[in-house]
């Protein structure tokens, strides 16, 4: 496994497979945090469409054949794709953080309460990370199977992500000392850190599993 090859493959993916929606949905995710009453994970949901477009452009541009002819190992191609997807998801989460802080300040100043969903806090980020992990474990191995097509798998992946909205509803209605899970105060945020770290660990583990399944499939695939 060559680090340089993986890095070049990621740059190739970003250069040749980046659909304009990659940036559009990033702005959308940031902007939607300022809607006072809104189910928060929805803003992060749109990133999944941008990721689906990476795989769609792969099929349209016959990128699997293009990459198959490059002096790289197949598993390097798969690792690069997993990292491209995961880095986009993480970048989106990180970029939204200052906007989340700002929107929390503005919304609390206006005295508004989010009746449509939970507050923007570390638990929300943990839920979104788990939702992304669920999407990736369905879509990434699916993209290296048979015709490399991802439409149906993306739909299933999006449903999997949407199922995490259920956690959001649960968090919003928690009582009995667990209200801190929906809090945005410094004390509540501190208590939420272990949940975020747990979700991050789960995100890493699931993506590693997705990589191994996809690699095994790609070795046997007809390109």
């Amino acid at each position, binding site marked *: 496994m060559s680090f340089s090859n993986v890095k070049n493959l990621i740059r190739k993916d970003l250069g040749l497979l980046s659909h304009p929606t990659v940036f559009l949905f990033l702005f959308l995710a940031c902007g939607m945090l300022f809607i006072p009453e809104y189910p928060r994970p929805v803003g992060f949901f749109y990133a999944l469409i941008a990721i689906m477009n990476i795989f769609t452009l792969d099929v349209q541009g016959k990128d699997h*054949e293009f990459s198959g002819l490059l*002096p790289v190992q197949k598993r390097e191609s798969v690792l690069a794709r997993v990292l491209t997807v995961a880095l986009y998801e993480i970048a989106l989460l990180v970029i939204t953080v200052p906007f989340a802080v700002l929107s929390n300040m503005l919304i609390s100043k206006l005295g508004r309460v989010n009746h449509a969903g939970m507050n923007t806090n570390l638990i929300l980020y943990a839920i979104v990370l788990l939702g992304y992990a669920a999407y990736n474990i369905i879509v990434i191995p699916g993209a290296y199977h048979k015709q490399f097509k991802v439409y149906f798998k993306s739909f299933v992946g999006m449903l999997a992500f949407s199922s995490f909205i259920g956690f959001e509803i649960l968090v919003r209605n928690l009582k009995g000392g667990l209200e801190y899970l929906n809090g945005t105060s410094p004390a509540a945020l501190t208590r939420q850190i272990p949940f975020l770290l747990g979700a991050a660990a789960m995100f890493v583990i699931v993506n590693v599993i997705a990589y191994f399944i996809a690699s095994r499939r790609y070795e046997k695939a007809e390109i």
Partner: protein
Amino acid sequence: MTTILEAKNLCKVYPGPGGFELKNVGFSVPSGCITGFIGRNGAGKTTTFKVILGLSPRDAGEVSLFSKPMPEHEAECKQDIGVVFGGFSYHETKRLRAVTKAFKRFYKNWSEEKYRALLKKFALDENKRIKELSAGMKVKYALALALSHDAKLLMLDEPTSGLDPVSRDEIMDIFREFVDGGERSILFSTHITSDLDKCADYIIYIRDGAIAMQGDREQIIGGYRLIQGGRDDMSEALRAALIGIKETPFGFTGLIRESELYLAEGLATAKADIESIMLYTEKYERHES
């Protein structure tokens, strides 16, 4: 002369209706030569290329490139291979500049100077999108990429299909220039046999997924003769010796091995070329009754 590519007993089965089988395909490509890989559409040329390059997993057999086994040394071997599948049909909505930028990072021996010179020679505009290139320009762009990273072996699958005679001739000149010096080779699949008459040193002929013939082009051509005769000139012995016969109301033409030419004494003969060998072997093949 060293062996650049060696394939041994390659087998690949595509099951199901309309399936296809590659049957113990084996050949070698020496350095300093252009090897023509011929066969009808669907004979197994592209499948053989894909199996060699690891794009299609093989069921059995061995491949070694530059004396290194594949796929164990896949990345290392592909540094020294330039591949052209037809024209360049990847990332068609992207500009040449963007595709080249993504491509060149992978090659240790990439020469920007050589690439620029080839763009100029082929009159390629880097600001054009791949889909805006003609079929000939796509082949030239693919060749420009392949030649700019100092490949030792070019594997070209039907690179001249759809090209006009002038463009084909230009590409043949590039091929000859590429192998001059004796260290580099070209494996070149085509069904346009006249291209091979111009430049191939070796011929590999694949038929129904199996190698039907292979060797030095002059030896292969020299091993066959075309004969022509009237209806009364056909004898049972001659019919049995003919590889293929084309019969008309007035007589026949046929392909015969040079060693059996004595059976056609007195008949008009002509040198066979690759096209006639392929035609009489495939279309006018004599079937035992």
